[in-house]
């Protein structure tokens, strides 16, 4: 876990607690890729509650579109949505090189699977990588192979593997050529805005950025055991991305592998229906509680947990079990309060 290693040096800085508290952590997240590859679309869906259809209205991004996304109270994502037209790209690589590529936490590079000129895409990608390794050698790189819905379903896996192989090959060629010594591990995802694959990729990106993750996970685990749950999912309030989850031994037999993304997708769509019904803004909080008792199969509830999170609990059937779990989750809120507050020095993440 990166956060554990990173927390060691910050312990030494505990004299500087005050400034630490005042200034929440800001992660610079670069979102890059060729023009028209779908960067702004995915950003709008994940963080601004657009539905896939609405992204058709988005125009081209001019230069860099900066947005600050508050996530879980103590994590502010500094999202740089970089317009992908070639003129801008050249600009980032020359005049703005230091400005853009220094202090980057994460680079998300988006490839359009339908692109006609793959060689050129790769060339741009390699020059971006070279700038990144120069100024932010510790940055993580996520490669999203986007618009996968355009490929016929049975060919998707093969096309994806093939494209990832090409990206990896170009990356290692660059590393050898430039004599770069650091480590560069890219994490690939196949995505599409039309299904839940987008949530999978972003949940994983967010997962790596959240501070105190191990604390959240262990606390979630003990809560799950106490209330005899099958599965617990902790969602962020606006984006409904899964921040953390816990699954019981029995729950791991669930054959639906992509259930987290699916639930994110389902709930997010439903949030939009509610916002149409109530006439409240899309980003506002839409529901406080949802419960479903499916006879003697399972029961489930999703409730507002801390200020910034929702908790979804899957339980085995049983009225008494359900009610006590609901009460216990309310009590457990106290122990999760730290999700909202600013980082405490002992647990900070850098």
């Amino acid at each position, binding site marked *: 876990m990166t956060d554990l290693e990173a927390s060691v040096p910050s312990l030494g800085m505990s004299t500087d607690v005050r400034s630490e508290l005042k200034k929440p952590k800001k992660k610079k997240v670069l979102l890059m890729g060729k023009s028209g590859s779908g960067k702004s679309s995915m950003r709008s869906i994940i963080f601004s509650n657009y539905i896939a259809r609405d992204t058709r209205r988005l125009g081209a991004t001019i230069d860099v579109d900066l947005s600050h996304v508050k996530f879980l109270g103590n994590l502010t994502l500094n999202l740089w949505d970089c317009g992908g037209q070639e003129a801008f790209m050249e600009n980032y690589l020359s005049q703005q090189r230091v400005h853009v590529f220094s202090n980057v936490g994460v680079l998300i590079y988006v490839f359009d699977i339908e692109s006609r000129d793959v060689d050129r895409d790769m060339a741009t990608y390699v020059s971006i990588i070279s700038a990144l390794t120069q100024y932010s050698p510790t940055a993580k790189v996520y490669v999203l192979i986007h618009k996968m819905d355009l490929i016929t379903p049975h060919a998707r896996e093969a096309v994806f593997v093939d494209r990832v192989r090409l990206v990896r090959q170009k990356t290692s060629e660059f590393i050898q050529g430039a004599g770069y010594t650091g480590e560069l591990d890219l994490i690939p995802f196949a995505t599409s805005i039309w299904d839940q694959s987008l949530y999978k990729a972003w949940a994983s990106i967010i997962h790596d950025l959240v501070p105190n993750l191990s604390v959240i996970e262990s606390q979630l685990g003990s809560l799950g055991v106490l209330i*005899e749950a099958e599965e617990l999912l902790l969602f962020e309030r606006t984006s409904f991305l899964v921040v953390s989850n816990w699954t019981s031994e029995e729950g791991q037999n669930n054959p639906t592998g992509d259930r987290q993304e699916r639930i994110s997708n389902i709930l997010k769509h439903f949030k939009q229906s509610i916002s149409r019904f109530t006439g409240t803004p899309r980003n506002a909080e839409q529901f406080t509680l949802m419960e479903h008792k499916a*006879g003697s199969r399972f029961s489930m509830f999703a409730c507002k947990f801390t200020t910034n999170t929702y908790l979804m609990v899957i339980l085995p059937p049983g009225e008494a079990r359900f009610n006590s779990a609901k009460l216990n989750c309310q009590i457990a809120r106290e122990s999760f309060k730290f999700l909202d507050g600013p980082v405490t020095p002992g647990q900070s993440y850098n």
Partner: protein
Amino acid sequence: MSSRLRGLDAFDPDGSGEQPCETSSSLAQQALTRVYEQDQRLRKNGSRVSDQPPDLSSKGKPRLLLMGQRRSGKSSISSVVFHKLPPSETLFLESTARIQKDTLPSFMDFQVWDFPGQIDIFDNPTFDIDAMFGEIGALIWVIDAQDDYLEAVARLNVTILNLQRTYPNIKIEVFIHKVDGLSDDYKLDIQRDITIRIQDELCDHGFENAPVTFHLTSIYNHSIFEAFSKVIQKLIPRLGILEAMLTNLCRTCRFEKAYLFDVLSKIYIATDSEPADMASYEICSDYIDVIIDVTEVYGSWPRTQKYREALEGPPWNQKIEDQVASGCAESCMVLSDGNKPIILREVNKYLALVAIMKEDSYDKMPLVNMNVEVVVQGVKEFFEITKPK
């Protein structure tokens, strides 16, 4: 047996989790039995029950005929409503060459016949008109509002005139289709124009009050489901009693709106007497989707026997079936806006009751659940009694 709102029956494979109907004679049941006996008496005396669609209980399945000009959207409608095809995919539907007959297993098994638009059944002697229209429930005529509709209206007039003479009980539903993208004013203008053209023509031929109804529809929003709901409702015998039950429930529990949904097609087959608005229908219908989707993820796989034994062991020491309050799916959600709860209750495999409650009434849920339970039993008995014999 697997229900879409509860998922696979993990613990009792024979489906015995289904609660047997209460046989003690509740008030609702007595009323229904009375209605039923009365109905039977009338039937024996040979007098017709005027408000009941003909041949429903005696002969097989009610039939919906989809007709209209070619490319007016008939096949798209049936795919979207009955086969859950996403509206955007309907662009790729082939043109229909022959009559497509679909039987839909639903709360009442109805058939949907999709006619190819290019065939004129009255010109063509090979069609057995009587077999086609003899058992019909409703004729749905689809008109493309974005196209020149004069010819469609003329053909509809000919069809109505032909049918009125022999089958005066056929309900004719005109779907003025593809109205998404048209402005509200223009929509109403078109509807008025078509209505006048058809009624004038019918009046000229001496049919003053032909049963023709008009609906503005589009597959890209919920209007098509709303229109189908109204069509189906006309086919339900004794709909009034269902509606009265729901109205009663709404009054007792202070619900804003209650719908009885067909889960598969998301058509509502009854609602209370408050005027139905699109917004509340949409939210209820979307809520059913959410529950179905969640159930698909978590309710569709069998748990191990060992796990079940652990759940039934201490500290509970009860069988799973005894630990749950109800064998049917029960769901509820509370909106942030005004703390308004929406509840969903499974009636049987095909039907679900969905209702929107008043602000801040979540605290009264146990009481509400009891009342809903009574109504659900009543609805079950209703369908038991009105079932075609």
